[in-house]
């Protein structure tokens, strides 16, 4: 699933490890979610949204949204 994690992280000058520490997951997990190789569960998606003080929809993008943007 496409997402804006990398951009959001860059805006805050966080490394993958910084975000991983905040989420209490491994750096490899952050990388897998960020690159779309792994879709997080709903609870983890909510935790990610809470950390960025955004809604899930503002971070994770539906396929149609990505296609429309292209």
């Amino acid at each position, binding site marked *: 699933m496409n997402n804006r994690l990398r951009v959001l992280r860059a805006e805050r000058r966080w490394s993958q490890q910084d975000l991983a520490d905040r989420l209490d997951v491994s750096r490899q*997990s952050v990388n897998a979610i960020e690159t779309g190789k792994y879709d997080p569960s709903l609870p983890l998606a909510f935790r990610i949204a809470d950390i960025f003080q955004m809604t899930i929809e503002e971070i994770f993008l539906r396929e149609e949204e990505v296609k429309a943007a292209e």
Partner: protein
Amino acid sequence: MMTQAAIAKPKPGLWAGLFLANMAIIAALFITGAIEPPAPYLLFALNFALLLPLGKALLRRQVEAGAVTTAVRRYNRRFLTASLLYSAAMLGAGAATNYIAPHSPLMWALAILPILPAFGMIWAMMRYLAEETDEYQRHRAINAAMVGLALVLALGTGWGFLETFGLVPHVWAWWVFPAWAVGLGVSMAWSELRSGGAA
């Protein structure tokens, strides 16, 4: 500096390859009758010493890939302890087998000795899945376990039929564990390769 880093790079694949090659050589020698019990058990058990550098290299590789969680560290410690106890039990039981009367209670005890730490390894894996709070790591572990299961089912069913028709020699059932572990290891290495080393 670069050269030092290159030399220090952990090589779990090398240790795993060496471990498996030794297992295959010992099995081949045993099947062809070149060595007779208890020599194969003792050699199998001694080969388990390679799990120490393998475990160490694996942990360092996991640290580099940013894949280490508290549950992983706990699992590594438990699994390594169980496998070393397994090796010691095999070594002890293998050495004593020639001095004990067949079908005696002591022979039963000797046979059960390596089973207990082997169950310990299975327990360590079950605990890992229960204790891992990182859902992606748990997902990877479950996927790898399924690949191991697929390998065991394919080899077991395939070999079983070949054996039924008298085409291949008999293989002891305890080989399911190493076969499963090979599938697990290959799947973990494959997913590591695909992730291309987390940035």
